[in-house]
């Protein structure tokens, strides 16, 4: 059921128009905020999938990268009065360094599967405690406040609308990148690593190099997401950007959406964020735990019903071979 080229073009065009028009609609502020967060989550998940999905190096440490991205803006601003643009660049560079510092020894010494997950979890916790303990620099558990003057000089007009366009552009860039990667030689190498690392190595794939590239790329994109977070919220706390809860969110949304496909994490985030937010706003302040509780139940169902995520479902339904992986040869090792 491949769509005609013309129909496809029209669909994309109308989607583009809808996306461009959204901020001009008289939406309640809360709904608009949810839409921004939706794109933000979709962006982070798409960044995650490059290493967590394509190469199946399941990382529960991506909050580290979000955190570094956000905190380098905050810290450099509060200590040296550096503009957030430079802060963001420094953040991305630092994140890549951290990713390489963790990734190189991990991949070099063959830390695999669950053990890689443990290492990333430990990294996330290390970062959390370091940030909390360095009170003089990071503000400890209280976090950092970015003065509104700085933001408005950066974003000029209406903060929310400009943020919206920024995150939309970032999201489509990440999506485009993920798609390009999946259909490139690099992407096929990653797929080979996902299906069977030893076999890939035996076939001459430089697994160390490709895993490292995937990890650093994913980390750099995630740090950019963190930078966006810092500017959009203008308030950074350890609990908002660091720690396992953030990592869990990114990883589960992507996996539930389908981590084998370039569009999967986006689908996951686009479905899950409105779901939890709707439940949250319906309940108001009552029953605080319920949205996440339902999310947990949803995850259980998805893991059972669609091991390849929602996108696996969709793509097998459409009968398209968009994915680079072969689903049949999937067994537990």
């Amino acid at each position, binding site marked *: 059921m491949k769509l005609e080229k013309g129909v496809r073009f029209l669909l994309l065009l109308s989607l583009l128009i809808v996306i461009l028009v959204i901020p001009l609609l008289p939406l309640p502020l809360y709904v608009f905020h949810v839409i921004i967060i939706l794109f933000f989550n979709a962006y982070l998940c798409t960044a995650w999938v490059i290493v967590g999905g394509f190469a*199946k190096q*399941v990382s*529960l440490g991506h909050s580290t990268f979000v955190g570094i991205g956000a905190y380098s803006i905050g810290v450099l601003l509060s200590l040296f009065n550096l503009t957030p643009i430079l802060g963001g660049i420094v953040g991305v560079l630092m994140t890549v360094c951290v990713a390489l510092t*963790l990734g190189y*020894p*991990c991949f*070099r*010494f*063959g*830390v*695999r*599967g*669950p*053990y890689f*997950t*443990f*290492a990333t*979890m*430990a*990294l996330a*916790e*290390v970062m959390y*405690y*370091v940030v*909390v*303990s360095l009170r003089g620099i990071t503000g400890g558990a209280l976090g950092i406040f970015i003065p509104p003057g700085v933001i408005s000089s950066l974003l000029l007009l209406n903060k929310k609308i400009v943020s919206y366009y920024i995150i939309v552009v970032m999201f489509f860039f990440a999506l485009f990148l993920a798609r390009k990667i999946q259909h490139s030689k690099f992407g096929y190498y990653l797929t080979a690593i996902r299906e069977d690392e030893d076999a890939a190595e035996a076939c001459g794939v430089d697994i160390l190099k490709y895993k490292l590239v995937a990890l650093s790329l994913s980390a750099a994109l995630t740090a950019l997401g963190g930078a966006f977070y810092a500017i959009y919220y203008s308030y950074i706390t350890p609990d908002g950007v660091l720690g*396992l*809860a953030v990592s*869990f969110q990114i*990883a*589960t949304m992507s*996996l*539930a959406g389908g*981590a084998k496909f370039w569009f999967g994490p986006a689908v996951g985030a686009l479905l899950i964020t409105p779901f939890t937010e709707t439940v949250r706003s319906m309940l108001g302040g009552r*029953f*605080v*735990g*319920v*949205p*996440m*509780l339902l*999310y*947990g*139940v*949803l*995850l*259980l169902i*998805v*893991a*059972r019903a669609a*091991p390849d995520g929602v996108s696996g479902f969709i793509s097998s339904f459409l009968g398209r071979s968009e994915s680079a992986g072969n689903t049949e040869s*999937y067994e*537990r090792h």
Partner: protein
Amino acid sequence: MTVSVGLNLVYGVMRIVNYSQGELLMLGMYLSYWTFVFTGLDPYISIPVVCAILFAMSLLLHKYAVEPLLKLPYECQVVTFVGLIYIFQNGALLLWSPNYRSVIIDFVSKSITILSVNIPIGRLIATLASITAAFVLYLILKKTTIGLFIRATSQDPTAASMMGIDIKKIRLLTFALSSAMMGIGAGIMLPLYYVFPFMGNFYTIIALIIITLGGLGNFIGTILSSFVIGITEAMVGTYISPEIALAVAFVVFIFILFVRPSGIMGE
């Protein structure tokens, strides 16, 4: 320590990492807290009750959530366990509010002096009880027929099932046993620490570190590395700062992973 012993058992037999082990501990602590509130039963005395409830609950959990996972890839296991974590944490949040709760028992906060070292009684009981629990578990695994079955399943499930061991039942039993261990942990920790809905993650990670250090399936190693981690944390915590102490423990863990990619006793 009991958390890590339990986690280790599950991993050994099922090759599944139960990321929600810490949540089971949290649940156990709430159970013994409420038993204390409603019946006035000492957390130490209510241990068997809590164990039994956790045991029964994890039988259900295993049947409906965990067993189907054995056939699924690793990502699905992660998704399911994170889902379980969300369910437990937020269920607890919903039912019991985010308040920190604890039980205060008089004799626990007193301390005795041995060789001019002050030892708080609560901690002494905790240490002794977890060593005993770990030791009893060790004996069960080494000396009884059930233990033999469990070990066989852990070493080679296919061969074990060919020898007529019902590996499904053994897996169920192991999972439930490890949850019951959390009951013991809960009982001895409640008088010492607070219980709150989001406490679980921390203990899961600590337990992961300990079993990786001590070697999967290796009980003596688990007990030893519990001490190593505990002492390192206490030293750095006392002399530098408590947050840095945890960070240091995690960094040590990452380094050990580099040296021994699949744990000290890794395959």
